């Protein structure tokens, strides 16, 4: 009898903890949504005083360029090597260009560029805003009647949204160049077939534009998560480090989940392609 009530109590306690945890998560999600709406409404300053945004594009976009270009080059080269191994078994190694271009433009470009952007720029944004909060710079701004969301958060958000599609485009272009280097220059796939087959099967609207839309969505998701985690971080050294970790984990998961949803919407419907 005593044992039974103990089990019941433990079960109830577990249930209670689960409920509290879920409630806190939903509470936080609601705050994040309100934060997002507030940020959009107060981004007038970021767009009017555009040099604030340009400064952030420099930190988020320009400084991420090296890692994006180098990764793109290597991903393209590996794709060409691996793709060639498989394609030559079926005697269609000329289709290498199609394989490299389609996988980069549709999937790998936006997704890997997004993951790199989340870990390179997203974590930096979170740490910066979190530290500003910990050192009470945000509170000082509020004291001076400067809205920290308009002055600090919105420029970073817009910088991320602008940088992300450009970085993904650079990644794909560099990857295709890497695929060309390995496929044509190193392995010796016929150059004309490499480009012409690629051009014949990559569609500007269907593939490239959808890739750009994907990267734009990832840009919004990553920077939203990054600025929110920074703004919501507990103002301690531990809190900021936890928020930075959460930014990278949450935005990577968000990119992969959104990628699945967007791919399902873009490439399975339509004309049965």
């Amino acid at each position: 009898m005593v044992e039974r009530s103990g089990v019941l109590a433990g079960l109830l306690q577990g249930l209670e903890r689960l409920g509290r945890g879920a409630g806190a998560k939903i509470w936080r999600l609601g705050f994040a949504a309100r934060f997002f709406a507030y940020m959009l409404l107060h981004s007038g300053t970021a767009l009017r005083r555009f040099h604030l945004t340009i400064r952030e594009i420099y930190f988020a976009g320009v400084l991420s360029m090296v890692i994006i270009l180098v990764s793109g080059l290597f991903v393209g080269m590996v794709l060409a090597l691996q793709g060639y191994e498989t394609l030559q078994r079926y005697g269609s190694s000329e289709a290498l260009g199609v394989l490299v271009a389609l996988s980069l433009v549709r999937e790998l470009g936006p997704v890997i560029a997004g993951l790199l952007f989340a870990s390179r720029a997203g974590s930096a944004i979170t740490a910066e805003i979190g530290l500003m909060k910990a050192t009470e710079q945000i509170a000082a701004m509020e004291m001076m009647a400067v809205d920290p969301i308009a002055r600090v958060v919105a420029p970073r958000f817009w910088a991320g949204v602008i940088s992300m599609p450009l970085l993904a485009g650079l990644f794909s272009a560099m990857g295709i160049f890497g695929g060309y280097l390995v496929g044509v220059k190193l392995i010796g796939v016929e150059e004309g077939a490499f480009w012409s087959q690629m051009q014949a099967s990559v569609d500007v609207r269907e593939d490239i534009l959808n890739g750009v839309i994907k990267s734009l969505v990832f840009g919004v998701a990553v920077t939203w998560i990054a600025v929110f985690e920074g703004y919501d971080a507990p103002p301690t050294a531990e809190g900021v480090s936890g928020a930075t970790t959460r930014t990278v984990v949450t935005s990577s998961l968000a990119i992969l989940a959104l990628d699945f949803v967007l791919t399902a919407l873009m490439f399975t419907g339509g004309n049965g392609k």
Partner: protein
Amino acid sequence: MKRSTIDIWVGAFVAAGFAGLLFLALKVGNLASFSTAETYQVQAKFANIGGLKVRAPIKSAGVVVGRVSNVTFDNESYEAIVTFNVDAHYRFPRDTSAKILTSGLLGEQYVGLEAGGDGVMLKQGDRLRLTQSAVVLENLISQFLFNKAAENKVESKDGK
């Protein structure tokens, strides 16, 4: 103003990003083939279109002269109606025949046009009379197998 040094880097970054996207659109994609040139629409009925898809090329003598714009099913004749746009530069006689062909053994399917000898040219909304359906590989294989089986039967009877 210290801002100008940052401006030049951001400018270079944005320019490089757009250059990358432009490279994708022009060199990788087929933006150039998105011609806004005049086209005229022609239809053809096929008993079987195999794996023909919308936007598949229309070729004549190996040259792309147009694209498939629509594929529908005709509920009266139980045949497929393929509508395609042919570039207005290319003119074909009225008795041109259409075939569904495959590029390579496993390649994509396209419509091949073979010009006839009629003096009157095709115009907007015409329908091609002479068509040849897609070769369905499964049918070919099963025909081949049935023939083989029939031959074997005859041979074994003769052997008795």
